[in-house]
């Protein structure tokens, strides 16, 4: 077995990968074969199919979650108990309070603005001649990785003194308009808003796609009935379109909110959390791995977990309601 664990060359690694795939297929075949025997009790069948998944969830999710919670009550090396002092520090220290405030700004602004932009855009381009092209343009950022998008926007925000040739698009526009060039990523809270703009840029395409599909699914007879009643465009939007696609809007908002809570790449790539731009996920990484403050890091992870729960619960409840209505 030793050769399996100490692979050096890529060829050896591929061989090990091949063996692992064969092993997986063999085990699955065995499970399927055994559970298909006519006299096998049902509980064995259930266990054979659910067991592996349950084990993976326990070892990959439940166990790390419990360990993280325990770590959040311990000191930096995980040897001594410190009670609630990590939590006290997260809520008490000015630097970390800014992190929490920034996270709140992100979670409020990104889902609302992206959904609003996506919705308005979807309605505006609906059934126009340029619909496909217009949608493609807004959807494109979705295809770019977060790090890629961050690097693009880092160039957009790039700063050079007013008197010098500009390399950043935003500052070039300012200079053309006769203003001084600005350091967009330096002053709080504006720098956080400029970072949020990147996430909105990425997520609007997602919101637009889902909402556009949902708008197209509104039955034609409802729209015709409304038109016969002589509604204005605004009344149509407010009283027909939005109520009809409400479940989709909820899904979009909550999905983007969850993605926003986890966002890390944008802050890490563009400012590294400097200049008071850090948010919980980035701060967690920095504290745990760069600064070796595992206690604070675990506490931040637990807080992130706690913050996601209400959004997930709300999402699940809304989905259930939507299903009941059908």
């Amino acid at each position, binding site marked *: 077995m030793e050769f399996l664990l100490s692979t050096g060359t890529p060829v050896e690694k591929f061989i090990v990968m091949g063996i692992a795939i064969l092993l997986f297929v063999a085990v699955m075949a065995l499970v399927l074969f055994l559970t298909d025997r006519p006299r096998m009790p049902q509980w064995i069948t259930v266990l054979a199919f659910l067991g592996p998944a349950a084990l993976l969830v326990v070892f990959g999710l439940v166990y*790390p979650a419990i360990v993280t919670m325990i770590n959040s009550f311990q000191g930096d*090396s995980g040897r001594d108990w410190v009670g609630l002092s990590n939590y006290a520090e997260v809520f008490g220290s000015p630097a970390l309070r800014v992190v929490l405030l920034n996270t709140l700004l992100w979670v409020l602004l990104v889902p609302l603005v992206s959904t609003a932009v996506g919705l308005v855009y979807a309605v505006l381009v609906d059934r126009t001649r340029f619909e496909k092209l217009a949608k493609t343009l807004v959807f494109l950022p979705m295809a770019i990785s977060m*790090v890629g998008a961050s690097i693009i926007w880092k160039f957009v925000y790039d*700063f050079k003194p007013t008197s010098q040739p500009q390399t950043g698009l935003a500052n070039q526009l300012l200079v053309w308009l006769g203003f001084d060039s600005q350091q967009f990523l*330096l002053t709080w809270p504006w720098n956080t808003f400029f970072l949020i703009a990147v996430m909105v840029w990425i997520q609007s395409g997602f919101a637009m796609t889902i909402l556009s599909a949902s708008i197209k699914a509104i039955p034609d007879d409802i729209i015709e009935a409304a038109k016969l009643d002589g509604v204005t465009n605004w009344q149509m939007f407010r009283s027909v379109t939005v109520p009809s696609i409400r479940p989709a809007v909820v899904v979009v908002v909550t999905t983007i909110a969850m993605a926003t809570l986890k966002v890390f790449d944008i802050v890490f790539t563009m400012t*590294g959390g*400097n*200049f008071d731009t850090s948010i919980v996920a980035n701060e*967690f990484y920095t504290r745990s791995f*760069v600064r070796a403050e595992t206690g604070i890091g675990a506490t931040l992870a637990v807080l992130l977990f706690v913050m996601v729960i209400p959004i997930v619960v709300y999402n699940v409840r809304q989905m259930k309601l939507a299903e009941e209505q059908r």
Partner: protein
Amino acid sequence: MAASLGLAGVTLAACGGSGGSGGGEDVDEALASVDVSCEPYEQYGDLEGTTVGIYTSIVSPEDQAFIESFTPFEECTGVTVEYEGSRQFETQLPVRLEAGNAPDMAWVPQPGLVERIVNDFPDAVVPVGEQAEANVDEYYNESWKGYGTVDGTYYGAPLGANVKSFVWYAPAAFEENGYEIPETWDDMYALSEQIAADHPDAKPWCAGIESGNATGWPATDWLEDVMLRAAGPEVYDQWVAHEIPFDDPTVVDALNQVGTILKNPDMVNGGLGGVESIAVTPFGEAGLPILDRSCFLHRQASFYQANWPEGTNVAEDGDVFAFYLPGNDPEAQPVLVGGEFTMMFADRPEVKALQAYLASPEWSNAKAKVSPPGWVSANSGLDPANLKSPIDQLAYELLTDEATTIRFDGSDLMPAAIGTGSFWTGMTNWITGEDTESVLTMIENSWD
């Protein structure tokens, strides 16, 4: 936890890594001149067929010269050296140790990290072997041994070194204007004022401390260099060891002295903007305005020579060169240095032999011959003629001169939460407007 570990593709700029540019075009040629007489290697015994894995923060293209430098050792002893570089080295090494997947040897660029690893993973570390320790005793200034020692046991042997106390300048610009290289801080300040008066379109200094997640470290080097000069090596040691508070009045004075340059709009930031632009200018680009005369002076380590554009002549009469950052007393010559340390995690003879080889003059000379400019070690057995650039030779002179007082980069010696944490962010906040006292108090409060 697992979610963040997947992000290894994002780069973390390593603070104080040795520089290096180009690739290894000249390597083969240079290697031919490496002495391959196997005599010095007989002491390691018979190691035929064994393998040593090295894990380091030094990645392409700088890794090439290291890999080449193992050749004489590999050929003479029969050991195969497997080299693995990672930009995420500092965060991944503790993760690997935690997971029981320790490399045979790691090259740690911060004594503070050596100490943290020894404290957190006492069962994984192996003290420096006898042969390597004998080499360090014989060829290195004794301060180097102290940086690798934790609680009286010797764990980290020195590898490469760099000298931080340099000010880069353009010799031609100095000649045109009749400027002299300053020998004291006051001379340097007077020169800066002179430059500001002579060149209203330029600023005397340029600076930049942006370095991704490590933003702020070049500013910590400034403070450490001035601390070492203004307060003296003894107080510097007390400060780094936290025997005096981080916001001691001597530190306040030193940081204010740094502020006379870095926070003075008349002094910075040549061609790059106002004082605040220092915080957002990448450290690698900050010195480049020297080439177009937007600024005249840039304080940065010897490895900065790798950042000059290709074709820039680094020489005393070339496009750019560097002088020693002067102190208050022209006689005393304290030098702020950085460097890497080799640590073992496997108690096998071939690993010990490699560690001893890396601390020997044979390796330092072999490495110097195959390295592009920007690499130097503090090994006194190194022949300076093997170093490629005059800056490396100047750095080597300072490193091995008995008259110089050598002190290691303070932030690299402090615990990670300070040295790579609040000290970095504190200096960044200081540049962007916070005052000296409140920044130093914030850092002091974070040190518990």
